[in-house]
């Protein structure tokens, strides 16, 4: 495929926004039950999107194979989501509706998301809650036995459903159980401890994958009529992030190298409430749920001279509740990008607290006075405990210290309305795709999107493609395409094993993370990004000449797994910087220092950048090619985003 052949077609159905999905569902071709039995679908990943997609496709009668590099599907990183899941149920009678959830998401994403996808997301959000309750997900309830809600950032209604501070865990266990049921019924075959290392393209269509059995090192060929990547986000390109340690970009990146365009790679989310970095040995950062901002108040001392004082010794009048001051209508519940930048601005002004000066306070004293300690404990008890375990401080008595950290990636594989990438037969769902959150994701929307894609979108849209595959027959894997792809994977493994240098993959990864955080993190500028690109190239060179991978490739070897993933991060990192450099505007999580308003807010350039940047891989050491999907807003009037 060459650049000229790629025509981005988002396949947005015609008709009024509110009727598009209904109308699509009414017209999408169906696959009969006896034909579904003859169609094979591969799902890569078992987080919320992967587990829900695999289970739902299995229920429909497709032959599903699901792959996870973990020992069990239940380990996927969705499990760590804390705060909640949005749905436009309007149980609170506070004015919520599908339209408002849609509007909040578009605005929260700083007008860089596709209207039709977001509207559909808001529509199916209500079905997700029904589905999860039916599966036995123990959501929080009120005394009358009905479901409870709370507020999250960027909204003025209460539409977030939650299960204590473990909502992701409970939703994932629900999807995992639905998946387990299909495994028992034989409709889904589970391949645990298997990592997808490439996709196989036959005559321009995705026809399967090459997977490595992580216990034996054996490479396996798996053919299918369609492949669905639900492999999550790439925050770990920053090394330190709130993502689980093994989260990686490999599946998405290998697909990108085989022709799937990568959408908005520079759109990363920096979450404002994380436990600050404490030392060089640190392996990951821990998120403190956004729900804490419902009752916690962010502040720093007004006078930088007070920054080293004990917080309880700083009187009320000497504190600056900077979010409440700057954003009176949303206060502490501004969206994540805004809260993160505001914290950075205070620290940059010398008002940061704690030993490193890179932290602000999140204070619960008022809430404890108002509601009592027991109520606060019921709401956030597990989060307070987690904080105390890590820091040794008790947040009931001393304000928490928090600082922003990389948390989520809005960018991902470009997909059309049907969630298909630019490679026919290759789909991407959940965080792995770019589709719904624009330049900034609102809290409690990741869980919503993962489950929407897997339970309610993909099972319909995949039929549009598979209905044309009913005569194809089983996909043979003894073909030259499978052979060639497998050999390329084997060669790359051999190359990694035989460098014989001195540095571990981990140490090179740490260095990559530093470059990315300093130059492609919360604030970016052209000079820094250009430097970052040069530094990443040099680091990649060093990786391929000075890496050392212990052990053998034909055995269980976590160091080899890590090395492969870091090699992919080293390629992705450059693309992220190229994307950030080309986007001469600030929007959502992408903040270019050159483009800001007089009071430090993001300054969008709708005239020139109201599009999805979809990048095409042209080969190692080749410049990627930019394709643009213009964003058309028919329903929403574009405005400067204001939370004041």
């Amino acid at each position: 495929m060459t650049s000229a052949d790629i025509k981005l077609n988002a396949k947005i159905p015609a008709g009024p926004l509110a009727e598009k999905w209904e109308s699509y569902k009414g017209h999408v071709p169906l696959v009969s039950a006896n034909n579904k039995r003859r169609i094979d679908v591969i799902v890569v990943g078992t987080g919320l999107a992967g587990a829900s997609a695999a289970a739902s496709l299995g229920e429909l009668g497709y032959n599903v194979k699901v792959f996870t590099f973990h020992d069990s599907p239940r380990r996927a990183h969705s499990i760590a989501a804390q705060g909640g899941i949005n749905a436009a149920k309007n149980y609170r009678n506070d004015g919520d509706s599908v339209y408002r959830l849609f509007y909040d998401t578009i605005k929260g994403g700083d007008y860089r998301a596709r209207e039709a996808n977001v509207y559909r997301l808001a529509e199916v959000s209500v079905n997700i809650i029904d589905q999860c309750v039916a599966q036995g997900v123990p959501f929080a309830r009120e005394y009358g036995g009905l479901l409870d809600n709370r507020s999250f950032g960027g909204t003025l209604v209460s539409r977030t459903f939650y299960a204590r501070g473990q909502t992701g865990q409970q939703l994932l266990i629900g999807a995992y159980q639905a998946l387990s049921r299909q495994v028992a019924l034989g409709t889904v075959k589970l391949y645990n401890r298997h990592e997808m290392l490439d996709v196989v393209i036959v005559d321009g269509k995705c026809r399967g994958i090459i997977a490595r059995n992580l216990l034996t090192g054996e490479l396996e060929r798996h053919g299918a009529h369609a492949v669905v990547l639900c492999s999550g986000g790439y925050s770990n390109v920053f090394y330190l992030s709130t993502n689980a340690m093994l989260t990686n970009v490999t599946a998405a990146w290998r697909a990108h190298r085989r022709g799937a365009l990568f959408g908005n790679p520079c759109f990363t989310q920096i979450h404002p409430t994380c436990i600050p970095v404490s030392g060089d040995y640190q392996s990951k950062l821990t998120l403190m749920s956004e729900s804490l901002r419902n009752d916690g108040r962010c502040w720093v001392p007004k006078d930088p001279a007070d920054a080293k004082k004990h917080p309880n010794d700083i009187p009320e009048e000497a504190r600056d509740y900077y979010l409440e001051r700057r954003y009176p209508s949303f206060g502490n519940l501004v969206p994540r990008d805004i809260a993160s930048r505001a914290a950075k601005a205070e620290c940059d002004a010398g008002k940061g607290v704690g030993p490193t000066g890179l932290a602000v306070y999140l204070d619960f004293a008022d809430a404890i006075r108002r509601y009592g300690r027991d109520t606060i404990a019921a709401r956030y008890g597990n989060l307070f405990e987690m904080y105390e375990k890590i820091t040794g401080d008790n947040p009931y008595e001393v304000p928490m210290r928090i600082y922003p950290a990389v948390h989520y990636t809005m960018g991902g594989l470009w997909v059309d309305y049907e969630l298909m990438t630019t490679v026919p037969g290759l789909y991407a769902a959940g965080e792995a795709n770019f589709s719904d959150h624009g330049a900034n994701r609102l809290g409690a929307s990741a869980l919503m999107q993962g489950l929407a894609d897997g339970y309610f979108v993909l099972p319909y849209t995949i039929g549009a493609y598979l209905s044309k595959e009913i005569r194809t027959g089983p996909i043979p894997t003894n073909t030259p395409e499978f052979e060639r792809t497998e050999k390329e994977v084997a060669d790359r493994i051999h190359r990694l094993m035989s460098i014989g240098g001195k540095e571990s993959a981990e140490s090179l990864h740490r260095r990559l993370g530093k470059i990315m955080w300093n130059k492609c993190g919360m604030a970016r500028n052209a000079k820094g990004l250009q430097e970052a690109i040069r530094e990443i190239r040099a680091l990649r060179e060093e990786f391929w000449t000075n890496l050392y991978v212990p052990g053998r490739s034909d055995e269980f070897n976590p160091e080899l797994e890590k090395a492969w993933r870091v090699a992919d991060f080293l390629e992705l990192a450059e693309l992220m910087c190229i994307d950030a450099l080309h986007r001469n505007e600030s929007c959502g999580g992408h903040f270019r220092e050159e483009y800001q308003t007089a009071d430090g807010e993001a300054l969008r350039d709708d005239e020139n950048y109201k599009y999805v940047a979809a990048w095409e891989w042209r080969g190692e050491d080749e410049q990627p090619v930019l394709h643009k999907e213009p964003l058309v807003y028919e329903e929403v009037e574009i405005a400067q985003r204001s939370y004041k």
Partner: protein
Amino acid sequence: MKLTLKIWRQGGKYKGEFVTYSLDNINEHMSFLEMLDVLNEQLIRQREEPIAFEHDCREGICGTCSLVINGRPHGPLKGTTTCQLHMRTFKDGETIVIEPFRAKAFPVIRDLVVDRSAFDRIIQAGGYISVNTGQAPEANSIPIEKEVASRAFDAAACIGCGACVAACPNASAMLFTAAKVSHLALLPQGQVERKRRVLRMVAQMDKEGFGRCSNVKACEAECPKEISVSNIARMNREYLFAAVASETIA
């Protein structure tokens, strides 16, 4: 901090033995797994095989990390996974013994990594509510008493790490299985399959080679999510009821 580590090594050149390592300059704010990262980085630099251990989220929720530390699954702190354990819990100069979770049903894969897929098969045997996507009634159509939902949640908080098995002298999986049986049996949605579920899950648990429960309660003491043994009592009652009170009359 200075530490001496005695770590179980199995696979590669090791037949299954404790190997002793010394570490210096350990910061007390490091997590236990970060301490092992430091050791592995050191081993890689010396061109020795790093120690295989499992981990992922490092915030106590995914259930991937394991380890028996000084004889206790997930180490000495109550209600804490290994990844949430920090070195300030240990003394300078201490000798720490690190072993895998040991059980017949959890075969060792390498060093400290064991195969816990038996847990997945127990869930596959019946640890779910049979509801296909799209069939669900409106979420608020069945009110559930707050207290009941809360108890179901307490059971559902299990992270499937297997510490209960490692702690049990019989390597029993009763707490794990009972937590899932309880979670679903407490909720109105779980009633229809209640009997079948407990019978099948217990049968699978036995088939996997886990031992019987003899009320030692070490599982509860070591569970990082503090799942109560009262769930085992509930499962026993559920099992008895399901086994004795048959639906069919022959």
